[in-house]
């Protein structure tokens, strides 16, 4: 891959980091006329350790949970300066800073109608602090704060449906995407920034360290999440399901056996069935199955 002038190599992300690839795809799609506000998290830490930065666009980090509000202030200032029409504003963060501690700031940003694209890089746990469970950790995942044990199969709750929560705000565009499908992600970012108002894209980004898979399996794992129906790719436009990636569903066990975080489930058909039910519900809800 060539070096990108907007997200340069030399940053300190782990090998096989899905978030680093997705972040690069996002900013390349958005282009140089973009200002980014970034929550605290892996992406912030590995891209901007003083005195170095990977970013070729104006970029700001303030705190863990406030990128949506900081971006709101940037957007307001750009309107005041008469520069908003020529500048994109992106707020971005991980799943914890977006869907847990930053959900209030995100909701405020959406409700106020700011012309901002929010991108959530969803690696399904607090990876920067050592793989603790977040509200977006999937059902039955083994994390350091939802460990499997004699009495537990891991995380007891399914993922918080943040894209649906965003969509319920009545915003013009909500999409899910995956590091396993970079062209699709790029297209969605371009589409989002062409729409005025608040937009939300949630990108599934495998974390080899936290999910416990080989670094060269990042794309395979990401694609399996989509192909099993566990991570449906869809677009809402003005509240209506406008598009979804259709699949010939693979059994979820193929996805589960690809990662150490689900290893404890492999000899437990009962629990695998529960995960399969989640995928089946997604397939039904979003009409994911390719019609014969």
């Amino acid at each position, binding site marked *: 891959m060539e070096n990108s002038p907007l997200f340069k190599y030399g940053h300190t992300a782990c090998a096989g980091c899905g978030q680093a690839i997705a972040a690069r795809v996002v900013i390349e799609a958005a282009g140089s006329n973009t*200002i980014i506000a970034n929550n605290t998290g892996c992406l912030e830490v590995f891209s901007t350790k003083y005195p170095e930065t990977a970013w070729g666009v104006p970029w700001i*980090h303030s705190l863990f949970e406030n990128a949506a509000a900081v971006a709101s202030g940037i957007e*307001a200032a750009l309107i005041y300066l008469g520069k908003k029409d020529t500048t994109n504003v992106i707020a971005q963060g991980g799943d914890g800073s977006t869907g847990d501690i930053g959900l209030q700031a995100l909701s405020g940003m959406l409700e106020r109608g700011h012309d901002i694209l929010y991108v959530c890089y969803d690696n399904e746990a607090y990876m920067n602090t050592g793989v603790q469970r977040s509200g977006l950790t999937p059902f039955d995942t083994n994390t350091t704060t939802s460990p499997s044990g004699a009495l537990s199969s891991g995380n007891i709750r399914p993922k918080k449906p943040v894209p649906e929560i965003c969509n319920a705000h009545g915003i013009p565009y909500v999409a899910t995407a995956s590091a396993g499908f970079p062209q699709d992600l790029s297209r969605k970012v371009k589409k989002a920034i062409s729409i005025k108002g608040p937009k939300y894209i949630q990108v599934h980004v495998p974390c080899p360290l936290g999910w416990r898979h080989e670094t060269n399996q990042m794309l395979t794992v990401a694609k399996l999440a989509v192909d099993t129906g566990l991570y449906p790719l869809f677009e809402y436009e003005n509240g209506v399901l406008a598009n979804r990636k259709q699949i010939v569903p693979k059994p979820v066990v193929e996805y589960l056996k690809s990662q150490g975080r689900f290893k404890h489930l492999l000899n437990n058909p009962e629990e695998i069935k529960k995960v399969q039910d989640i995928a089946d519900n997604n397939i039904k809800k979003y009409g994911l199955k390719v019609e014969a």
Partner: protein
Amino acid sequence: MKQFAEGSHAVAEIIKACQPGVISAYPITPQTHIVEDLAQMVSNGELKSQFVNVESEHSAASVVLGGSATGVRVYTATSSQGLFYMQEVVFNIAGMRLPVVMTCANRAISAPINIWNDQQDSISLRDAGWVQIYAEDNQEAVDFHLIAYRLGEDKRVMLPVMVCMDGFILTHGMETVDLPEQDKVNKFLPKYNPLYKLDTAEPISMGLLADPDYYMEARFAIQETMKDSLGYLSEISQEFNAVFGRDYKDLLVEEYQTKDADKVIVAMGSVCGTIKEVVDEQRSKGKKVGLLRIITYRPFPYARIYEALKDVPRVAVLDKAVSLGAYAPIAVEMKAAFYGKKKGPKIISSFVGGLGGRDITLESIHEVLRRLTAKEVNSDFIDLKPELLKEEYGK
């Protein structure tokens, strides 16, 4: 232009004159009247500003942080729990060297919940890296906001400034104030032109991770700037006097009948009006009583205070806040100002009063003077109601 106005309205008028590009706030009593007035000014087209209604104080502070980082003058106001809720951002704004200006309409802290005035809120954020200036009356509240922008945006400073005004007593009090004319404001306060900003023409990264190799120097730089700001405040106040015809000495402290005094009360904010009345009355009876009013609490003017009080035998410090389990906040600084020095008061007694809006009356001040004896006291509460303590503790 002289106007009989509510304190909050007068503050809104001066903020309008300072023309911030982004205003963001979340409602909390007693700050509300300020931001309501600003919202109306924006709605009427009198003030060309983006007014961002947010879902919390945390976001209010974050919005002005983002606006300031984009190179625009910004404003927010809050009180009490609101200030505490934005505390994380308050520290962050200073660390990022963004010259945000905030009004703190001083109010007590929960629990028990209480909307009335004391100064526990802003004093608790003394370590945040914000310059803190306390107004005695509404004229000062107006003038200090103008000075706040001028100081904070000074390229030698680049720090946020909090203008503190006692909730209700000032925010809701009606007084005649001289509102600075727009042309004079423009003369005194140049357009905001930051050293660094978020700009696609010249991309920079802000808010980077600083490891142990770099962190301390960033904090040291703020500490040094804070110390230097004592001098800048004196310099700027002289210029302010020249443009607006006021008589601020240096904006660090006000010495009121302290020169030959036997007893001096040290206090901050609107209560100093009451103390001055007692001082005048005592002086008329030939008693050598004075007041040292602290105007700038951060940075703390140690040297200035030393000079002012080094020959005064007895000092009473009246705090409208407590540091539960320790000496009261201003009292600690006062003792530190004289520790190890050749000269200084033999007695520095500390009193706590006015918490949660308990009135500090003329009689309260007389009581402080009565208790300022040869026996030093610390965090001695005034105006307590013994009958309530009896009920609670069975004393």
